[in-house]
């Protein structure tokens, strides 16, 4: 509740900040301070101190899983602010409004990661999505951004429609919005139909395979800073909501959907990885890579064990940090294609080294957080009884190495004049810190996962 109220209020404050503060820098500093306050408030709640005592009538439950993920999302957002807030201001004139939209998204993340009622799930997902539609189209003079925004909006509202219909059917079958259904012996058809609709719409929100068509275009068209945020924090939040929904609401009818989720995961892995191989633009490659990483995260929903829960949190952190880091560099590049990175290591050896850490983490090479999170997922999958799916996932991870290493190859082994602008020392140190966290989590994952228990 702390994080929810803090981030909502911060959004309102940011909304007014542009006409109270007429200085871009002070607006930015204010945003950082507010986010830091939100993080601290959330840590307090994680330690059992809640500032607000609100009777939610069982509609929200702030358990450790939800709180920890909120913390991860907030910290990733803070990293995003540190690295990219200057670029956020370059999108257009409403810089304070962009921050306020981001805070509203954070509020949505809290709601959608702690819901106990389908109504709250819907609200949370909507609060996540609507500011994103707007941020996608915030570069108003760029036709591609407009197109991406419209596409995202139309597809997104369609999937929201599916979700609402699913919720309505489930309500019809069970007579309640609260999660945690109990089924006698025969599962009613209405419930199954509702569950399927929810599965589809949630798959859309996290861009899992048959519903991934919007992803490349939207991620490519949106301003790169925004892409960086929506491909990481928001997507992870979608997975947390997905997992919570299927663990709590449909946990008791698991045999009905297990196979389907497995298939979705496999297809997502396949399509994401194979298509990413053929991309020429790094931004588009990252879009497809986000689809393939989504496939890995789907494995957590497939297995639904404690390992999967830990793994999903770790995955969210590892994937978000690495992708935010890569995007922060990408925003500053002149050319977004692979050729644009040719000879990058000669000019910026430090940045190139950090990028390598991030890419290795995404590819899942040992000693990075990405490896361990993939490991958790595979372990959970094998425990969940599907060796074949785990083997397939490993194969696909091997494919992913190709396109991540392609970027390393063009940075180190090709000559060219990669141009980057606006890299300050602070920026470099922040990136280095992110890389440090990535390696640290790769060696001591307990630093993060222990929070789930103590």
């Amino acid at each position, binding site marked *: 509740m702390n994080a*929810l109220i803090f981030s*909502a209020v911060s*959004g*309102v404050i940011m*909304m007014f900040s542009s006409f109270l503060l007429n200085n871009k820098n002070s607006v930015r500093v204010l945003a950082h301070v507010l986010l830091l306050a939100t993080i601290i408030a959330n840590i307090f709640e994680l330690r059992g101190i809640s500032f607000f005592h*609100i009777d*939610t*009538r069982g*509609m*929200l439950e702030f358990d450790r899983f939800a709180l920890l993920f909120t913390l991860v999302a907030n910290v990733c957002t803070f990293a995003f602010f540190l690295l990219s807030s200057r670029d956020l201001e370059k999108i*257009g*004139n*409403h810089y304070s*409004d*962009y921050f*306020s*939209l981001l805070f*509203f*998204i954070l*509020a*949505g993340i809290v*709601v959608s990661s702690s819901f106990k*009622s389908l*109504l*709250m799930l819907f*609200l949370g997902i*909507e*609060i996540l999505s*609507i*500011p994103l*539609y*707007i941020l996608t*189209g*915030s570069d*108003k*003079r*760029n*036709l*591609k951004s407009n197109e991406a925004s419209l596409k995202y909006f139309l597809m997104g509202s369609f999937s929201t429609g599916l979700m609402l219909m699913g919720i309505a*059917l489930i309500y*019809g*079958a069970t007579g309640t919005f609260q999660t945690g259904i109990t089924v006698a012996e025969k599962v*009613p*058809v*209405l419930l*199954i*139909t509702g569950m399927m609709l929810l599965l589809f719409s949630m798959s859309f929100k996290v861009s899992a395979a048959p519903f991934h068509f919007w992803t490349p275009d939207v991620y490519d068209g949106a301003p790169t800073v925004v892409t960086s945020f929506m491909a990481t924090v928001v997507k992870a939040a979608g997975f947390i909501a997905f997992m919570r929904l299927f663990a709590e609401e449909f946990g008791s009818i698991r045999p009905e959907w297990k196979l389907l989720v497995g298939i979705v995961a496999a297809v997502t892995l396949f399509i994401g990885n194979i298509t990413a191989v053929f991309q020429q633009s790094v931004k588009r490659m990252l879009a497809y890579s986000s689809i393939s990483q989504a496939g890995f995260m789907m494995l957590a929903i497939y297995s639904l064990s404690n390992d999967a829960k830990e793994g999903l949190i770790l995955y969210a952190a590892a994937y978000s940090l690495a992708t935010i880091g890569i995007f922060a560099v990408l925003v500053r590049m002149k050319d977004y294609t692979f050729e644009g990175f040719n000879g990058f290591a000669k000019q910026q050896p430090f940045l190139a080294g950090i990028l390598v850490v991030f890419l290795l983490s995404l590819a899942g090479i040992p000693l990075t957080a990405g490896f361990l999170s993939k490991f958790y997922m595979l372990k959970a999958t094998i425990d969940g009884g599907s060796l074949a799916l785990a083997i397939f996932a490993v194969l696909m991870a091997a494919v992913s190495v190709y396109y991540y290493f392609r970027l390393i190859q063009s940075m180190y082994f090709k000559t060219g004049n990669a141009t980057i602008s606006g890299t300050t020392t602070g920026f470099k140190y922040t990136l280095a810190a992110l890389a440090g966290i990535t390696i640290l989590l790769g060696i001591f994952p307990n630093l993060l996962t222990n929070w789930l228990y103590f």
Partner: protein
Amino acid sequence: MGITQILFWILAITAIFSALMVVISKNPVYSVLWLIVTFFTISGHYILLNAQFLAVVNIIVYAGAIMVLFLFVIMLMNLNKETEPQKSKWLKLAGAVAGGCLLLVLVAGLRHTEKQMTEMVTGDIGLIQNLGKVLFKDYVVPFEISSILFLSAMVGAVVLGKKEPRIPVETEMRKVEETQQAINI
């Protein structure tokens, strides 16, 4: 058959017919108008369920505000039959099959539900007093949280709708060029 039942059948048939016409109509203006008819029939159903407040709110929000804006936009764009893109035959077939499957599943799902789930006329949850009590007692948290949703939508409307101050010509030209390049790709 009492008057309530007669009204129910009339409303139900009109609702289904007009909903179909929304989809079938070639002219978007007709689609919107049929949609308004659909909303009216749904409001009629609400009134049959003694939920007058919901009925009226349905009319205010959908027929009165949203559909008017729809009409506005569609009429200003002056969409004609010629501008409608031609879809391939297979796509249409696939759509029909998928929609048919959904229909089949929904019919199967609804067939097994308990009958008499609705309370005609006697139910009073739709009256404004009860609704207000439920909304502000049991559902006050979602109600408050939805304010975040609306606030963000409002901020978004300002962000998207507000006129940008003129930017220098060079940057504008550069942006135009970038856009053209993007389109060429």
